């Protein structure tokens, strides 16, 4: 049984995996409130898409380790938040074998996004560093 909360999905009553997911969605959401909104503001208001060529990314934006680290942190938060959120959506609409199969595809996609994003944030033109 779940405890009814007035706003979001009910918080699972017993401590365990589902409780962990419930908190992780909210904590990663808070992190993304700062990281994703800052990211969108920087790429659209501080800079402009027209100037964000590959050369600009590696000379300016990812010229130092700080922004690469922050962007990698954002990637981790996004992978947790977006895919746990999609897990909730899928579980709401699908049941049984279809749910299991769709969730497997979803988790595989999450892994691919994490790997591809990690390779991207650790790369210079020509391929990954080291």
């Amino acid at each position, binding site marked *: 049984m779940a405890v009814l909360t007035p706003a979001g999905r009910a918080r699972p009553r017993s401590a365990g995996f589902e409780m962990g997911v419930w908190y992780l969605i*909210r904590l990663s959401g808070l992190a993304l409130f700062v990281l994703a*909104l800052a990211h969108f503001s920087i790429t659209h208001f501080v800079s402009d898409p027209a100037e964000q060529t*590959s050369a600009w990314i590696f000379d300016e934006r990812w010229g130092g380790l700080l922004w690469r680290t922050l962007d990698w942190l954002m990637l981790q938060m996004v992978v947790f938040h977006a895919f746990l959120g*999609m897990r909730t959506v899928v579980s709401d609409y699908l049941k049984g074998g279809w749910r299991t199969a769709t969730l497997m595809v979803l988790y595989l996609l999450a892994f691919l996004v994490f790997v591809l994003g990690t390779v991207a944030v650790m790369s210079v*033109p020509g391929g990954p560093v080291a």
Partner: protein
Amino acid sequence: MLLRYRGGPGMLAWAFHRIAGVALWAFILLHVLDIWLAAANPGLYDEVLAVYASLPGRMGEALLGAALLYHALNGLRIIALDFWPRLTRYHLQLWYASWVVFFLVGIPGAYLIVAPALGLPGLKG
């Protein structure tokens, strides 16, 4: 579930949150792929970037920004109500306040994103 309207701001807030969330998830798939191209195939990345910087691309980004801003503001409202249930007494005020912030930030934001493609004055002159 999404189509069975039960009425009230709570239901609308939930439906918008879900639609925006799924849209943002889909964009993440595209965005990780295009940023991966920046190093893997710089020439192709620059071509994709030109689409982002075009008028249709910028209109898409304004919509993306709207989805992100709504999902962020409503998510904050959910977290506040989940962790401080006594705020529920003011849930309608919180709902209206999130829309005030949405339009106050969103309208100038959308203008600034689209302006360069229309030759209108923006942040870059």
